[in-house]
């Protein structure tokens, strides 16, 4: 029986469907409630901060003064042009963004804590806020932090020697300027934690809605100078993360501090407004992109100037380099780029800090590169498919202009598949007929690769002080024959309990139902990094497979002893160990013997461990969108959305398709709907879900998925990661489709989200030019 590749229904689902999942807020019922006082000012000096005069029993006030000497969050990048900004847990003197936590109130209920917040004496001397990157980069602009004069926190520069000459002599040089507006990952469950003090052991258990429980434990223990062994972090059921929940937020340190100081239980469950204004933002980027093309459309050189608004602080552990440096290293994407020049800067402003969000910079660089391809194709007078085909990497392994190794992929094949499914000539006829009736249809393509499952080298190349590369998996068989798989990764919706069980079941010849995947608990799992960067299936999956193979070897050795055979002669299948001569023993009986008959199996056990740290692999896809744009209103309707994706070996197609569709939905939101709008004074104008518009079932169309499986030689399982691809490809496909639809007006779209007002403005501007 082969379990890998089957659409197995998820083991996670029944409890969640019965409302019996256990999320952080469910654990928090009964704990004292913590609410945070947040700065209404983006930049200023705290001139007064005092607790309410009337503090009822059971209530507490905590500010920097109460916390005393504790550490600051100061993530490191070991590179020349990095300014390490320090973030206090609660600020003693200055605030740096609207929403920054300034003090905490504890009360028996959240409602009482909120009442008390209103009675805190809090005055700030407000100073000019730097919100826009232009203002922060303006010569003579005040520094957001004294350590970073000029407000550039991190910078990368590279130029291949041939780049300048290529631009000087190229028949076509195409230059575009791109803008991606700020987004919030917006998991349906916001952040939150519940710190519980155990008086018997003196330990604290922090249950929190996070993606990296081990990292959080290490980070908090360092901040509070406490023994790490006295802290247990549990990520229970987590209601989505998408990168936002990777960061060590100051609020979690306050919870653990409270639990230790007052020897009790304290919970903070953020509300939606806190999540929108004060968690972590992303994608606030501006690029200037130039491509040098030969007469036939061959790309000769690429030049990128990348600005990323990283906000007021640097998120731990990924740092403020995560967006600018990823764009810098990965801009060439799936294309042959003979010469490359780039400069990337992370710009400090008085805004909410940037942290990873699904795809990190790749939705933006794909938007840039794929817009460039369409604009260049039009300029040169060739077809959008043709310009991509001639420039896509077609021999592997390919060493990119930035030194990355692209493993076997299907860039051209997925493009060709998409073109065939779309029947582009037929679409062009339909488009023509529609235009004659005053209807504007457009088709947009987006080809990209996604670096996934990368271990140490990718993070080390960035110079990260914390290198979240490897994963460890511990495996053991119980005396009753069930398998316990303990993983350092921390899934939160990705179905890893099911997919890893499938993988392990095949290696051990057992049913997936008898595999228990244990995760999200620092007491019960080996040290590991978590679920992010499309890595869990590749890295935890690889470690799981290796651990299972080691356990299989032990089972075969044990069975050989009982069956009087040799280990090589034993096969594991259908829950039994079977010898070549047909004699067999059930694995449950075998496991019981190994555990209980130490007279026979002296010093032998059924526990193994595996460590995996792969170099990384590239999954790839071609997305295509057909849209209809109403030029009168600027409204965009998606008529068809198609994905041809290649993530290597698919362990569970049901889960894989769900990952693609969910990613595409977020990418469509990125392209059309979602934007954190910040006023000049630094206040956020989109502080509710009525203003920050997450798309519903009316906006997200059915998403058609086709697969290719190019097995990766760079991963143990042959699988490549696919968690982020959907969100990476969609903005470019939509933006290209809108530009194609509006080509009769001369509109080229370079800003996302392409909201109706922006589309109308682009049409008006084009009409004014004409």
């Amino acid at each position, binding site marked *: 029986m082969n379990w890998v590749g089957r659409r197995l229904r998820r083991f996670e689902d029944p409890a969640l*469907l*019965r409302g019996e999942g256990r999320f952080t807020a469910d654990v928090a019922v009964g704990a004292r409630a913590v609410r945070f006082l947040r700065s209404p000012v983006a930049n200023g000096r705290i001139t007064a901060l005092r607790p309410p005069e009337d503090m009822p029993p059971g209530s507490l006030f905590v500010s920097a003064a109460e916390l005393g000497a504790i550490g600051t969050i100061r993530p490191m990048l070991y590179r020349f042009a990095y300014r390490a900004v320090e973030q206090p847990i609660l600020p003693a003197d200055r605030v740096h963004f609207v929403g920054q936590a300034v003090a905490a109130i504890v009360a028996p209920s959240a409602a009482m804590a909120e009442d008390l917040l209103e009675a805190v004496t809090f005055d700030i001397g407000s100073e000019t806020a730097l919100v826009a990157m232009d203002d922060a980069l303006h010569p003579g602009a005040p520094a957001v932090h004294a350590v970073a004069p000029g407000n550039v926190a991190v910078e990368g520069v590279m130029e291949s020697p041939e780049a300048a000459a290529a631009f000087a002599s190229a028949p076509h040089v195409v230059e575009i300027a791109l803008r991606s507006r700020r987004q919030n990952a917006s998991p349906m469950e916001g952040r939150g934690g519940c710190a519980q003090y155990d008086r018997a052991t003196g330990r604290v258990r922090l249950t929190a809605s996070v993606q990296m429980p081990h990292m959080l434990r290490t980070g908090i223990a360092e901040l509070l100078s406490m023994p790490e062994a006295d802290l247990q972090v549990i990520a229970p059921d987590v209601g*989505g993360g998408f990168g936002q929940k990777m960061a060590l937020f100051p609020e979690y340190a306050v919870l653990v501090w409270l639990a230790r100081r007052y020897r009790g239980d304290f919970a903070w469950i953020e509300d939606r407004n806190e999540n929108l204004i004060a968690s972590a933002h992303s994608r606030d980027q501006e690029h200037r992109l130039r491509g040098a093309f030969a007469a036939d459309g061959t790309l000769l050189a690429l030049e990128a100037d990348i600005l990323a608004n990283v906000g007021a602080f640097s998120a731990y552990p990924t740092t403020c380099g995560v967006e600018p440096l990823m764009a810098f290293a990965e801009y060439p994407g799936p294309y042959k780029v003979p010469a490359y020049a780039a400069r990337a800067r992370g710009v400090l402003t008085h805004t909410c800090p940037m942290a990873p969000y699904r795809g990190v910079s790749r939705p933006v660089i794909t938007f840039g590169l794929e817009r460039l391809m369409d604009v260049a194709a039009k300029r040169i007078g060739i077809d959008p498919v043709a310009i991509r085909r001639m420039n896509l990497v077609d021999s592997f392994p390919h060493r990119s202009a930035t030194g990355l190794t692209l493993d076997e992929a299907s860039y051209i094949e997925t493009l060709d598949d998409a073109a065939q499914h779309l029947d582009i000539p037929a679409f062009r006829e339909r488009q023509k007929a529609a235009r004659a009736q005053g209807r504007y249809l457009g088709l947009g393509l987006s080809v990209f690769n996604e670096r996934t499952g990368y271990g140490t080298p990718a993070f080390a190349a960035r110079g990260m002080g914390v290198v979240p590369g490897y994963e460890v998996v511990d495996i053991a068989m119980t005396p009753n024959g069930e398998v316990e798989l303990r993983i350092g990764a921390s899934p939160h919706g*990705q179905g890893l309990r099911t997919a890893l069980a499938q993988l392990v079941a095949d290696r051990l010849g057992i049913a997936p139902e008898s595999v228990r995947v244990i995760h999200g608990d620092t007491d019960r799992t080996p040290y590991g990094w978590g679920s992010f960067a499309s890595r869990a299936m590749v890295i935890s999956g690889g470690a799981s497979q290796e651990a299972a193979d080691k356990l299989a070897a032990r089972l075969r050795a044990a069975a050989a002893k009982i069956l009087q055979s040799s280990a090589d002669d034993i096969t594991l299948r259908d829950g039994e160990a079977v010898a070549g001569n047909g004699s067999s023993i059930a694995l449950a009986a075998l496991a019981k013997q190994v555990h209980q008959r130490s007279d026979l199996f002296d010093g032998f056990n059924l526990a193994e461990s595996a460590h995996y740290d792969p170099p990384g692999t590239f999954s790839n896809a071609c997305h295509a969108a057909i849209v209809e744009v109403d030029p009168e209103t600027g409204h965009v309707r998606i008529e068809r959305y198609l994905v041809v994706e290649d993530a290597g070996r698919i362990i569970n197609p049901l889960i894989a398709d769900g990952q693609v569709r969910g990613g595409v939905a977020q990418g469509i939101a990125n392209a059309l709907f979602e934007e954190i709008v910040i006023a000049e004074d630094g206040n956020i104008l989109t502080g509710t879900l009525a203003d920050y518009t997450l798309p519903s079932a009316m906006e997200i169309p059915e998403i058609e998925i086709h697969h290719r499986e190019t097995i990766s030689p760079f991963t143990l399982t042959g699988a490549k990661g696919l968690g982020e691809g959907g969100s990476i490809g969609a903005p470019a496909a939509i933006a290209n489709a809108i530009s194609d639809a509006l080509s009769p007006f001369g509109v080229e779209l370079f800003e996302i989200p392409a909201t109706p007002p922006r589309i109308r403005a682009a049409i008006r501007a084009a009409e004014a030019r004409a």
Partner: protein
Amino acid sequence: MSRHVVTFTVNGVAQRVEVEARSTLADTLRESCGLTGTHLGCEHGVCGACTVLVNDIPTRACLMFAVQADGAAIRTVEGLAAPDGTLNALQQAFQDHHGLQCGFCTPGFLMLSTWLLERDEVLSEATLREALASNICRCTGYQGIVEAVRSAARKAGRWAE
């Protein structure tokens, strides 16, 4: 804060709770009744994660005060499965069609869909999507949810082919 005694039934079980006038139905279900299956996603009536049925009408439990529910018959996600935990047809369809990933919005979608399937109306793709647009899911892209409810509606003879 003055406290008020409120009585209602939840999933057929009589409940008597003492609440502040400002306590929402959602907080009351979670904290006073111990029914944490009803989730709070936004607490301002947009996301629909907290949807419960109040006298058989889908209701944002975050926008209703507990005192307003006095005397009402309330149904929550905990009431859907059989006592032994066996999923009902709608819940099973959600699992079969991968209509959930993180599962946080799921109780709200299940209660909304329960109402949709109990109405004496035939659903179509358009009416289904319009109704499901009451709630927000961040993980699935909705397709699994649409397929799950469509399949359950088909089995119940409420789907316009």
